[in-house]
């Protein structure tokens, strides 16, 4: 059984179709990136999964059950959500204690989780004085209170400085690798999560674009092996004999498709060709992401110029 299952989920806010027939699953023990540009419907999907938003149709299940049917939700799933905050006049510890009381967890969990997220020193401080990064850590502490095996994080990197993001990445990997947690983490910036996730789910404009492993996504962007050196042209016969196609984008550089870097290296050794560079070329992941999601903010590609803009005085 999948740890998380979203089945034909739809939700509209007035005329806005925030989530439109989205289905995907998250397997236990993986870190899954839930990606899409702002307004794609990530938050709405996650809030539906957590029983905070009532979907118009479809289901969102955790361990096969709806969130509201979980007997001890905090012990099954922890969540860090956007647009969640804390009463500024309450201390970090008291925030967590209130939740412990309501969830029937021992009050000692408050200090334990504060320690886990590195806030032990400010446990007794009012949240009013906390930076955005500290609040984000406190939010993570709330998610960890019940020692859940599933974690759902909505844009957790927002407001974190680079060091904080680095820490978060490590922490998520620790939860997945050492604690066996399933993690679903959303982001509108692929680069934030690409080093952390195993799988990706991409949505845009409320619709599912693609689900797969990160490797599948990036292999789509494989642009061949780039090899350079003064005499690389001498490798061409051998590589073509091995079934690769070879391009020469500029003199002294070959772009080899359909061959592993090892094959190219072996060819260079056999031909005794001096190399100055041998690298697997990937297209920029962010570019793949932008192409897939059709983000209007993406730089225009070399597409033919739309006819309308060529018409002087045309309506645009």
């Amino acid at each position: 059984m999948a740890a998380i299952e979203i089945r034909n989920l739809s939700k509209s806010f007035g005329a806005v179709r925030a989530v439109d027939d989205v289905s995907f699953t998250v397997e236990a023990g993986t870190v899954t990136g839930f990606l899409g540009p702002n307004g794609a419907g990530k938050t709405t999907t996650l809030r539906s999964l957590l029983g905070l938003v009532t979907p118009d149709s479809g289901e969102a299940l955790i361990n096969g059950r709806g969130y509201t049917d979980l007997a001890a939700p905090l012990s099954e799933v922890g969540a860090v959500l956007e647009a969640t905050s804390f009463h500024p006049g309450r201390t970090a510890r008291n925030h967590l204690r209130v939740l412990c009381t309501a969830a029937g967890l021992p009050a000692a969990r408050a200090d334990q989780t504060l320690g886990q997220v590195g806030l032990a020193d400010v446990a007794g401080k009012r949240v009013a004085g906390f930076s955005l990064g500290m609040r984000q850590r406190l939010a993570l502490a709330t998610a960890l209170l019940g020692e859940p095996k599933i974690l759902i994080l909505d844009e957790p990197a927002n407001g974190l400085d680079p060091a904080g993001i680095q820490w978060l990445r490590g922490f998520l990997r620790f939860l997945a690798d050492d604690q066996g947690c399933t993690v679903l983490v959303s982001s509108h910036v692929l680069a934030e999560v690409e080093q952390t996730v195993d799988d990706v789910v991409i949505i845009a404009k409320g619709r599912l674009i693609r689900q797969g492993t990160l490797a599948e996504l990036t292999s789509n962007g494989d642009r061949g092996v780039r090899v350079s050196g003064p005499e690389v042209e001498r490798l061409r016969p051998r590589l073509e004999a091995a079934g690769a196609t070879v391009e020469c984008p500029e003199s002294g550089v070959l772009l080899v498709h359909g061959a592993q870097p090892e094959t190219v290296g072996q060819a260079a050794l056999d031909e005794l060709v001096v190399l100055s560079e041998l690298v697997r070329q990937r297209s920029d992941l962010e570019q793949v992401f932008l192409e897939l999601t059709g983000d209007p903010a993406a730089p225009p590609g070399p597409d033919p110029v739309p006819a309308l803009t060529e018409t002087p005085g045309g309506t645009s």
Partner: protein
Amino acid sequence: MIRLVKAELQKVFTTRMVWGMLALSLGFTAIGLVALSLLSGMQGAPPITDPDGVKNLFSQAGVGLVFAFVIGTLLITGEYRFQTITHTFLVTPRRQRVVAAKLVACAGVGLFFGAAGIALAFAVGVPALLIKGGSLSLIDGDVVRLCAGVVAAMALYTILGLALGSLLRNQVAAIVVGIGWVYVLENLLVALLPSVGKWLPGGAAQAVYGVSSPLGGDYLPAWGGAALLVGYALLFAVVASATTIRRDIT
């Protein structure tokens, strides 16, 4: 369920606001007690040493209703304002249980405010009565009933705050509307149009206190006032749950 009520009470008592409101409530009670005691028998002011005067004196325990109301409002509007409602519903996704816990917690806060007011009323009222030459036998069943009324009214107004807060969600709006109602509109109606006013929460509270209307209008009998207060509490409870349970939290 008990742990949810405990959690709600913990929310109230882990911020400073509750102590500020309690201080204000007791402050108003103290002013009323001292003023009535000092003016007793002077310039036509009713002496505190006759039965009505005693009731009037002890009814000062409940003049801080509006501050209990504010605490009730904050218990729900604060959740929306600071977006802690998300945490609350994540812990307890069955929202009607959260609403029920908040209602009980509000009743508890009202009880606490009422008890504090009564304690102060006795602390000031008993010596004042003795100084003015009154007899402690004046503190009779009527005063006991009045104290029960103070506690009931405090609880009711805290729940009223919760209900109005659930309806409006905006903290400032709920407090302004609530104070405007308690201090201005309701007082006016109770005083000027007793036939309407006696059916309002304020009139019902006065009926339970058993004090007579300043303008001579009649209140409901005490049991009628009590029944009306309970009816209002139920009505507000329905408002509070109906407005909280279905909404999307985004």
